[in-house]
């Protein structure tokens, strides 16, 4: 009878534990799903701007390529864009939650541990369930009987706590604490910006295309009109025209290629120069160029190059009126020019190739310089230009016009037969006497630095001098013995030096004999 009730109790316990597991599963499943849902939502916010970004990209593709298959983007409004933007995160959340639900199962131990923790049962229910499963699956191990009876006791012990566990009320699931990230919050305005950008592009593109269909004046025509007007009033309208010239021209508009156009433009520039004041500007330019060239000798290379550029620009502006008149002449008789070119290009090219600064000029300028019309002005002008350029760049480059022999690059010491002055001249050092070198030797400090020794000056080593001295005779004074009185005070503590053994024996014997003698005399007296 007792056994049968025990068996029923065991069955009851298993059923009760199953019920607890089922209940805990529902609770934990919903708790975990809620938790997971909130976490996934948090992640999904980041996906808000994915679709707007794609739309924006497609808009760009449509505008650049004009692909008609993407024309549906034109029909999308703000709300459609917003709705589609929400689609990706929603799909992401749904997918993740379903995936989590299908792949996340709560095991029995975890489920029962919920009640163990809730009621403070110290793992009694989970342990009993584990031991019950062990007993059912594996046959009793007779070798460790003591342990098995303890397992049975643990199962029996859990029975008393099943009823309270079944009646226990689980706490309501706490609301998930939102843990927003700044990045997550930023995704919302970014999404809105992307949508608005896509809409604006759509709008801009549609208006641009609609404008393209209506006829309009081309910029060249406008330019020509303005140029014509500028001939009348150059001072007031010039900056605007120059700004317009700087703008890139559309494809359908041809650039100023013809010589007549160039001539007009040059004329305009010349007019502007003239209007700025020929009387003073020319002088100032001359003065500046000369002063710059003199100053640039001491300036670093960058500064000198910038100074050169400025000088060149000024020179060009001065030469341009001449050039324009020459161009006009050249247009009139091109054949004459061609013959002149053939005769003079070779010499000009040779003279220019020696100058490095000229080779650095832009190709357009070089072409201008190589123009035979310029060379007609004669050698003197060219030489003057070169001199100025060399002056301005004298800080960097040697003046080859001096035709001095190059410095001796021999690194070895000169022979002893040469005079010192000759040696100095022959060496690379020049007058200064400082050695200039290349290669590895250039890494040696070229500036003479005086040696400095840290320390305090002293007399140096002590010198011992032995001197001979003749011995002096001194008189010896004898001290006479005198009777001294007894000492008033004690000497204090006197250390007794340890005597050697024979001395100790001697003293000992001495005192013993004295004592013996005294005793003998006493006995004799008695």
């Amino acid at each position, binding site marked *: 009878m*007792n*056994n049968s009730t*025990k*068996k029923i109790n065991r069955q009851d316990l298993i059923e009760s534990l199953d019920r607890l597991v089922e209940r805990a599963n529902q609770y934990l499943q919903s708790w975990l799903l809620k938790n997971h849902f909130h976490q996934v939502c948090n992640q999904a916010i980041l996906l808000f701007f994915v679709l707007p970004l794609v739309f924006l990209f497609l808009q760009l593709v449509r505008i650049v390529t004009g692909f008609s298959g993407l024309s549906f983007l034109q029909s999308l409004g703000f709300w459609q864009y917003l709705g589609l933007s929400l689609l990706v995160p929603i799909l992401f959340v749904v997918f993740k939650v379903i995936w989590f639900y299908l792949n996340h199962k709560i095991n029995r*131990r*975890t489920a029962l*541990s*919920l009640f163990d*923790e809730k009621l403070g049962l*110290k*793992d*009694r229910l*989970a*342990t009993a369930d*584990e*031991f019950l499963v062990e007993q059912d699956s594996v046959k*009793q191990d007779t070798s*460790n*009987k*003591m*342990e*098995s*009876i*303890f*397992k*049975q*006791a*643990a*199962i*029996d*012990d859990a029975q008393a706590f099943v009823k309270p566990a079944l009646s226990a009320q689980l706490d309501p699931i706490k609301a998930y604490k939102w843990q927003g990230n700044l990045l997550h919050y930023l995704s919302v305005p970014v999404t809105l910006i992307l949508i608005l950008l896509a809409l604006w592009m759509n709008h801009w593109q549609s208006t641009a295309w609609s404008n393209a269909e209506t006829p309009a004046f081309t910029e060249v025509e406008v330019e020509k009109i303005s140029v014509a007007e500028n001939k009348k009033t150059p001072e007031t309208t010039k900056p605007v025209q120059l700004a317009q010239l700087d703008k890139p021209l559309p494809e359908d508009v041809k650039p100023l290629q013809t010589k007549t156009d160039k001539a007009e433009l040059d004329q305009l520039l010349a007019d502007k120069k003239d209007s700025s004041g020929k009387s003073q500007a020319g002088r100032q330019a001359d003065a500046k160029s000369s002063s710059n060239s003199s100053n640039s000798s001491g300036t670093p290379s960058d500064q000198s190059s910038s100074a050169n550029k400025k000088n060149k620009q000024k020179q060009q502006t001065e030469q341009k009126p001449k050039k324009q008149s020459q161009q006009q002449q050249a247009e009139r008789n091109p054949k004459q020019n061609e013959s002149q070119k053939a005769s003079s290009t070779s010499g000009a090219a040779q003279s220019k190739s020696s100058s490095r600064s000229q080779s650095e000029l832009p190709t357009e300028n070089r072409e201008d310089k190589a123009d035979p019309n310029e060379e007609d002005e004669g050698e003197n002008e060219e030489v003057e230009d070169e001199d100025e350029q060399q002056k301005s760049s004298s800080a960097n480059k040697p003046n080859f016009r001096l035709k001095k022999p190059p410095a001796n690059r021999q690194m070895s010491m000169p022979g002893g037969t040469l005079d010192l002055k000759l040696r100095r001249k022959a060496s690379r050092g020049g007058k200064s006497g400082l050695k200039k070198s290349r290669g590895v030797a250039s890494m040696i400090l070229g500036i003479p630095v005086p040696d400095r020794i840290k320390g305090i000056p002293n007399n140096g080593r002590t010198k011992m001098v032995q001197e001979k001295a003749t011995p002096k005779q001194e008189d010896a004074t004898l001290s006479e013995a005198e009777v001294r009185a007894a000492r008033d005070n004690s000497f204090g503590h006197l250390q007794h030096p340890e005597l050697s053994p024979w001395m100790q024996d001697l003293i000992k014997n001495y005192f013993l004999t004295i004592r013996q003698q005294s005793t003998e005399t006493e006995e004799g007296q008695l």
Partner: protein
Amino acid sequence: MNVMKDETMGADAAREASAQFRTTYNNIKEQVCRMMVGQDDVIEGVLTALLAGGHVLLEGVPGLGKTMLVRSLSEAIDLPFSRIQFTPDMMPADIQGTSLLIESEDGSHELRFQEGPLVSNLVLADEINRATPKTQSALLEAMQERQITVGKRTIKLAEPYCVMATQNPVEQEGTYPLPEAQLDRFLMKLIVGYPKESDYSSILRRTTGAEEVTVSAASNAEEIIKMRQVVRAVPVPEQAEAYAVRLVMGTQPASDYAPSLVNEHIALGSSPRGAQALLLTAKVKALLSDRFAVSVDDIKAAALPVLRHRLVINFQGQSEGITADQVINDVVASVKAPHGID
């Protein structure tokens, strides 16, 4: 039917053994508490180590009753007790024993082995860190193998055998800190602290009064051996075992469960012997809590005394004043039980 009958009887036997265990334990504790006042945790720790079959290291300043605790315990369980006062000039032969040349009645001489103080049931190794490493290592075999080997002679030590060592944390000059291998042999390290203010009056009355306090035997060697068997029989569920393993791994730097404090400040973590010690101690705690299986909470309660002497703090940790107790508390807080409910 027979199986069920056996199960029922077995469960009753387990209940009975568990009840007997608690009764004997409480009796011994009561007797020891007659001598020792205000050191309940230390007494419980020493008794737990004794019943779990381990050795115990007591650390505390002089005058807290460490030696008296061990002496009164030996009286309470009626076991032979020997005390070794370790000094720097002590040699292994002084504690293990040595062969002496003895003259017999007929005038002949023979070598006879004289057992040292290590051959006993309860050994009090007083100020163990004052002995040289050579002498300290003489204890290793006795503590682990429960035997001592002198020359060609091996002596099996009688059960129950327990070494209770004391060391003074203050006077470190002229001491030889115990090596890790020696420390690992101790089941637990107990810190003997100062008693409370309320305990002082009873301590003074008992020690300075006319009445002499005596300890009577509450148990004996056989009963202690039986109690040890009961402790071994307590089953450990999977989750508790897994938690003990995780806890020990949590003290090892660069392991999966190690928190940042361990990774930064620990040079050497606990060995698997630490996990064994955790389970044995947890079993005693489960029996004392009237349970028949170990729980995760039992292991948590055992973590501090069992693991604190098994951790070696690195230089950085020492310079920052990190203690082993801080590290263990951090590990216990960070390592989750396998069921994983927060």
